[in-house]
């Protein structure tokens, strides 16, 4: 059993036309047993930056607090907001600091840059980043999610269409993974604001 698969998670982030979407499941398990169905793994860092943290739940929560700390410090010192790219670099840096005793998380960053253009990045547990313009996935059902996204994704989707695509891709992936599921949350981020919705799926 891998430590990254102890609690279970599934997160997809996708880019649309002047918007991004990020969705996660809400299951928290201890291997086979389900412990909670309201454990969200996607966190809002600002109106334009969301981060999804998949992996060991304790590290998910710790990293969320650490990121908030670093973000506050940055904004106090620089007197301006973090951009998604810089935020992604901060995260990558934090992870590499623990190169030989890492945090067991594999994050994704989704946001809108200064020109309200979509930004996506994914990382491994020691901070190696990948930047894409279509989608990033992470968690215990990545094989399923890659397949679903590759099939359903189209460029330049409007927010409503992005929501549909993201939701269908996630829901179908969750159903074939024992460790993720039990509810899902989707956030669609545009320059005018964020819309968050709960998805109704199989609660198993």
């Amino acid at each position, binding site marked *: 059993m891998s430590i990254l698969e102890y609690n279970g998670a599934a997160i997809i982030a996708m880019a649309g036309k002047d918007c991004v979407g990020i969705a996660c499941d809400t299951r928290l398990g201890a291997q086979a047993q389900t412990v909670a169905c309201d454990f969200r793994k996607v966190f809002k860092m600002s109106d334009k930056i969301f981060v999804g943290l998949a992996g060991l739940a304790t590290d998910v929560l710790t990293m969320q*607090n*650490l990121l*908030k*700390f670093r973000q*506050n*410090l940055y904004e*106090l*010192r620089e*007197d301006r907001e973090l951009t998604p790219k810089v935020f992604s670099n901060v995260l990558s840096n934090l992870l590499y600091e623990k190169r030989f005793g890492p945090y067991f998380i594999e994050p994704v960053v989704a946001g809108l840059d200064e020109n309200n253009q979509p930004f996506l990045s994914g990382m491994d547990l020691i901070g190696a980043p990948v930047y894409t313009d279509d989608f990033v996935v992470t968690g215990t059902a990545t094989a399923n999610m890659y397949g679903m996204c590759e099939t359903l994704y189209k460029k330049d989707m409007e927010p409503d269409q992005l929501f549909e695509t993201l939701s269908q891709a996630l829901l179908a992936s969750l159903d074939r993974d024992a460790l993720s599921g039990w509810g899902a949350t989707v956030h669609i981020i545009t320059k005018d604001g964020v819309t968050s919705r709960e998805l109704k799926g199989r609660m198993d």
Partner: protein
Amino acid sequence: MARRYDSSTTTFSPEGRLHQVEYAIEAINNAGTCIGILAKDGIVMASEKRVTSGLLAPSKSSEKTYKISQHVACNVAGLTADANILIDQARLRAGRYEYQYCEPIPVEQLVELVCNYKQAYTQYGGLRPFGVAFLFAGYDEHYGFQLYQSDPSGNYSGWKATVIGSNNQAGKSLLKNEYGSSSSSEEEEEEKEGEMKVEGAATEEISMPDVKGALRLAVKVLNKTMDASASSSEKMELYVMSLENGQVVHKILNKEEAQKVIDEVEAEATPAGET
């Protein structure tokens, strides 16, 4: 004059004084004035902006007021370079507390942490003390709005209203007379009449001003402490901390808003009827 006890911070003089610390405090008395006033619904901090040269590039943020965290801000009087170190420390400590406890650091604890850091430079290492005095303004759910003053010795105290920097004695004496009894609007005059009747029962009750009243008082004090006779919005910086929807809001008044307060204070000074 006990000069031989001056140079080392870590030695007492025969009279039981730490001369280096006292000299540090002197350094602050030459710096731009900072006034802090506690109000019912917030805190006002006013500071004198000393523009040393017209060639200086305009600073994007303040040289006097600094945000330490979401719920704490401070005003600086003294050596800016020393202040930068301490402000960074304060921000780190506030951030670390919130990281550990997932709740904002109580204001007094933050002030004490910064002051303990300053105190170390009066006892160990043979290093000179920081030449900075701070006014900390903060809000927490335990004690509401609080105003603290700290000096190079690492000593701090909580105040309802105080002044640091040049001419602080003049400022303090003005505040002593005016704080808690200022009335500059007609409605306040009527309220005071009502209060007068009750006054007989209670002993010296200081009525806290609201933020607007505190702003006017701060400008009044600044007018007294500043060298130039003409007060303008370029020479002073007015900062207000208040609560909006349960969240702490930091605001540095812009030129128009600051000028409005200055005009109101001037109107008070020249009573109506005088031409």
